[in-house]
C-alpha cells in the first residue's frame, strides 16, 4: 500500500499544472516579511501564517480529493500516508515521511527532508528561534483535515532554519467531528 500511494502521488503530480518555483518561493517570502513588518511580533506572525494556511487548507482538500480520486481513509494511518506520499508530492513536488507514531496511534510526525519553501532563506538571529517560517503548512493540514471531519492540532517541531536536519511537523488527532454529514463516520 505504501508504494501504491507513492505511485498515485507521482501520477497526480505529473497531471497537474506547474508554476515557476521561484515566483512561488519569492511570493511566500514576501508574505512572511510583510507580516513581520506589519505585526512586529513573531508570535502573531506565526499565528497569522497558521490562519492563512487554514484558509488554504479548507479549499485545497477538495482539489486534492478531486484530482487524486482518493476516497475516505479507513484510519489515521491511511490519512497520514496520503498526506505524506500523495498530497505533499502533488502540491510541493516533495515526498514526506511519516514517523514517530505515539503509543496510542493518535499522534504522528510528518518529516520533510527537503522543503522548497525554505530554499535561500536565512533567518536573522533575533527571530531564528521563535519564527516558524513555513508555519502555513501547519494551517493547511489542519484546515484540510477539518473538512473531512478530523479535528487535529498541528505544530512545527523542527526546522533546518533552526539548525535541525529536517522539517518535522507534529499532527495530533483530537476527535472526529460529528457533523451533519449524512454518510456514516469513518
Amino acid at each position, binding site marked *: 500500500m505504501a508504494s501504491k500511494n507513492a505511485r498515485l502521488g507521482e501520477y497526480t503530480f505529473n497531471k497537474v499544472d506547474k508554476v515557476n518555483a521561484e515566483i512561488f518561493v519569492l511570493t511566500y517570502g514576501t508574505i512572511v516579511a510583510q507580516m513581520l513588518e506589519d505585526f512586529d511580533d513573531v508570535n502573531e506572525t506565526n499565528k497569522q501564517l497558521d490562519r492563512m494556511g487554514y484558509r488554504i487548507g479548507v479549499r485545497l482538500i*477538495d*482539489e486534492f480529493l*478531486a484530482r487524486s480520486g482518493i476516497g475516505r481513509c479507513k484510519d489515521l494511518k491511511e490519512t497520514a500516508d496520503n498526506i505524506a506520499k500523495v498530497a505533499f508530492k502533488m502540491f510541493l513536488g516533495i515526498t514526506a515521511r511519516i514517523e514517530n507514531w505515539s503509543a496510542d496511534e493518535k499522534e504522528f510526525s510528518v518529516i520533510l527532508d527537503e522543503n522548497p519553501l525554505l530554499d535561500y532563506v536565512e533567518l536573522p538571529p533575533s527571530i531564528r528561534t521563535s519564527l516558524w517560517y513555513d508555519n502555513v503548512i501547519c494551517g493547511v493540514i489542519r484546515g484540510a483535515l477539518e473538512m473531512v471531519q478530523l479535528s487535529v492540532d498541528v505544530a512545527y517541531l523542527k526546522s533546518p532554519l533552526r539548525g535541525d536536519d529536517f522539517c518535522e511537523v507534529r499532527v495530533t488527532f483530537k476527535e472526529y467531528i460529528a457533523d451533519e454529514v449524512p454518510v*456514516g463516520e469513518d
Partner: protein
Amino acid sequence: MSAQPIYALYIINKSGGLMYQAEFAEEARKLTMNDHLRLAGTFYGLYAITSNVTPTKGTSTGLQVLETDGFRLQSYQSPTGIVFYLTGHPGRGNYDHLLKQIYQLYADYVLKNPFYELEQPIHCQQFDAALVKLLKEDLK
C-alpha cells in the same frame, strides 16, 4: 447515437442547503426557484435517511441512483460532505465520469475563487461556462 441530454445539476452543501442549480436541456420542465429549493431539500433528506438505514454493520453512502422511466438521477458525495446530483435522460448509461469531472470543476472554479465563501450559493460565471462546455462535449 442521438444526444441523450443531462437535464439538471444540483449541488448541496453539508447542511442540506442548495448551493447551485442549473438546467441544461430545453425539453426539461421549467421549475421555479422554490421548486428547486424544495427538491434539493427533499433529496438531501432522502440521502441522509438512506445512508442511515443500511442493513449492514458497515458505513454506507446515501442514495446514489434513482431511475424512473422519465429520468435517471445519480448522486455523488465528496468526502468533504458536498453532494452533487445530476438528472438526465433515462436511456443514458452511468454518469460517474461526469460527476467526477464536475467535482473537479467545483474544486477549480468555485473553491479557487478567493471571494467565494464556503457553503454559500455559487455565483461563478466561469463555473457556469465550464459546466456548459463539459456537458456539451459529453453529448457528442
